[in-house]
């Protein structure tokens, strides 16, 4: 029971991370397509400035919870995905540094350097998280000792790459909607047009991915046993359609929330299908890591649950407050304050 609770929380943590950092990573990826001037770029940085770091902590927490609740999974997953994770790590370092460094010097070459770091540092994690999770859903070649029998290129199979493309599209749509919310004028128009343009691409890739999932994974087994679970992918589809409706009505906050729900439901669709596995082995189902054979002791799980139930609501409360504090559209005057970034 405790293991199941922690599996659920584990899935929710990843889903919330993708929902929150998703808009930063997506918007960073799109910056070259959206910004026409240095002012546009500064507005885009500013739209993410107060949020990216707080969003990234959800990743650290998701990693920490994997370590704490399912240490064997953490050990095997992180060492198996070594090269992919290192790439994500370096990308996130460059992405984060660009916020602090970009406007520290007036030189255009310096700014251009960090602009590229932001874009590549946003695109790579978006792509690689998709690749990693599609591979986890599908299973990776781990043996009885939990030793990975593949390379980085093993992960770049068609299903994995499809997952990568799906994540990039989910995040870029999410990011363009965020900018549509946060900006005005031309920049807002471009973000709105791009969001409308990305939507059909996302729809096609999402449908293809769902079909490929049927062929490449066992995710649907749980759904066939408990058809009520089909509500989760249905919510994902409904939220995706609602996103389009809100884009059409130029209702940007609702569109962004619908896109958030799409990301959360899509992630949970995969996670629910995975249960009770955390990391299936493609070599032999007996080698798979599950919530039962890789969990921490009930004592640790109980203590962690106490900590989570006490502190996570507090975290959510002050993060919501912080988002509310910075809810306004970014205006040119906001940049004049020179508030450190």
């Amino acid at each position, binding site marked *: 029971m405790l293991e199941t609770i922690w599996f659920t929380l584990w899935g929710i943590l990843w889903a919330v991370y993708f929902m929150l950092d998703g808009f930063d990573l997506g918007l960073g990826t799109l910056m070259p397509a959206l910004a026409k001037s240095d002012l546009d770029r500064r507005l885009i940085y500013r739209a993410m400035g107060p949020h990216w770091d707080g969003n990234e902590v959800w990743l650290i927490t998701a990693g920490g919870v994997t370590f704490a609740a399912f240490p064997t999974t953490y050990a095997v997953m992180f060492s198996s995905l070594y090269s992919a994770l290192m790439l994500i790590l370096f990308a996130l370092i460059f992405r984060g540094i660009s916020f602090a460094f970009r406007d520290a010097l007036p030189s255009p070459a310096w700014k251009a350097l960090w602009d590229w770091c932001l874009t590549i540092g946003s695109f790579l994690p978006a792509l690689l998280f998709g690749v990693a999770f599609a591979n986890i859903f599908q299973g990776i070649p781990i043996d009885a000792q939990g030793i990975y029998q593949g390379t980085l290129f093993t992960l770049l199979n068609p299903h994995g790459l499809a997952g990568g493309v799906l994540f990039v599209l989910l995040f870029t749509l999410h990011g363009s909607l965020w900018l549509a919310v946060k900006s005005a004028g031309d920049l807002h128009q471009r973000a709105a047009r791009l969001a409308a343009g990305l939507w059909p691409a996302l729809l096609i890739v999402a449908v293809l991915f769902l079909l490929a999932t049927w062929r490449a994974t066992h995710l649907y087994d749980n759904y066939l046993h408990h058809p009520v679970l089909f509500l989760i992918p249905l919510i994902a589809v409904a939220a995706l359609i609602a996103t389009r409706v809100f884009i059409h009505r130029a209702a940007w906050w609702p569109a962004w929330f619908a896109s958030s729900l799409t990301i959360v439901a899509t992630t949970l669709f995969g996670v629910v299908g995975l249960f009770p596995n955390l990391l299936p082995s493609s070599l032999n189902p007996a080698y798979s890591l599950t919530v039962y054979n890789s969990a921490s002791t009930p004592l640790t799980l109980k203590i962690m649950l106490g*900590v989570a139930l006490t502190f996570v609501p507090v975290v959510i409360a002050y993060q919501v407050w912080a988002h509310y504090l910075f809810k306004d559209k970014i205006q040119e005057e906001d940049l004049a304050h020179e508030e450190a970034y």
Partner: protein
Amino acid sequence: MDALMLSRLQFAVATFFHFLFVPLTLGLSILIAIMETIYVRTGNEDYRRLARFWGRIFIVNFTIGVLTGITLEFQFGTNWSRYSRYVGDIFGSLLAIEATVAFFLESTFLAVWVFGWNRLSPRLHALSIWLVALASNLSALWILIANAWMQHPVGYVLRGGRAELQDFLAVITQPFAWQIFFHTISGAYILAGFFVMGLSAYHLLRKQETAFFAKSFRLALTFALIFSLAEIVQGHFHAGEVAKIQPAKLAAMESHWHTQTGAPMHLFLIPDESRDRNLVEFGTIPDALSLLAFHSPQATVKGLKDFPKDERPPVALTFLAFRLMVALGFLFVVLTVVGWFKRHRLEASPGFLKVMLYAIPLPYVALQAGWIVTEVGRQPWIVYGLMKTADAVSPVAVSQVGVSLAAFIAVYSLLGVAAFYLMRKFALQGPEPAVAPTHSGGGLKNA
């Protein structure tokens, strides 16, 4: 080289680089919070400018500290998966708690502080930097509790091939954890104090904004003086704790080879590890080691020769790092005490100011040396007495670790240079000009 050696090097590079930034974050956040609180209470505009001036440097430092911290969390899984599996039940939960109670708080409220100058009342704005300071120091507490458990495992039971949690309270209340915590944060506060004093000295020497920088110098001086003194006293008891629970580390710290009662201390010695002895020893103080380590001149201090060769840490490195740290610790007391007597005539003491400017790197050296004593002195164990470092490494390809190590060295070098350059630039540039704030919500009227 094998994956073990490369992984150890990579962990060393990642930790040392991370730890170049973290101590300043721990101490400077508190100093900035004090400055802004003085502003809120007195309405003295200089203190608002001080908070903003040091805040700008703080943000560069903080950002790099945060981003390089993720590396450490990832590395336990990527490079030390056997360790992670073995200790996850205890160590993993401490990391997860750190993220939940500290990282969210510090990241969210730093953003509130940075972007909130004109959106929050001065009181709430000052509160947000206090929360950043509290959260940074809380995160130090949790990670050091985790480290202390690796140094001195308690509250566990070995079952099913791993260490399982048996007594959570024992893990978080063990005295060694709190010793490490107080020792590390005092070091961090000394570092931040010297950082602020050194840069203030630079401007005082150039007669720029002297009233402004005299204020920050004196604030930092008080802070550094208190913690330099505390560090000496606490460090003494800390070493006593090491003597009890990690005798091999103590022996290496003192390059002490023969078990004896009334063990002496040598003011100067050169260790010769290959022959299990010291090449040169002089300035011998009888019974001093026994007295310092166990508070009794006749206490027995176990020598390195009585530990199996494969359970001894590297002696020369541990010894040198310890001596260096202790010498610097005493120097910090001398400098801050001298500063205390000169605090009202700083501008008339250019020699002292120059010394303080060039003293900025010294606490950095002392803190890194301290980490060498802690971590190298614990070898060959990753979890003291339970698991050796050699048994902890991931089954990953040498090429993978080689490539990532090379990438870490390259990326961190570039980042280090860029960060140093920017912090130097912001520091030398001085504060923004003194003008009353014109935006609503900020400034004196709400103070």
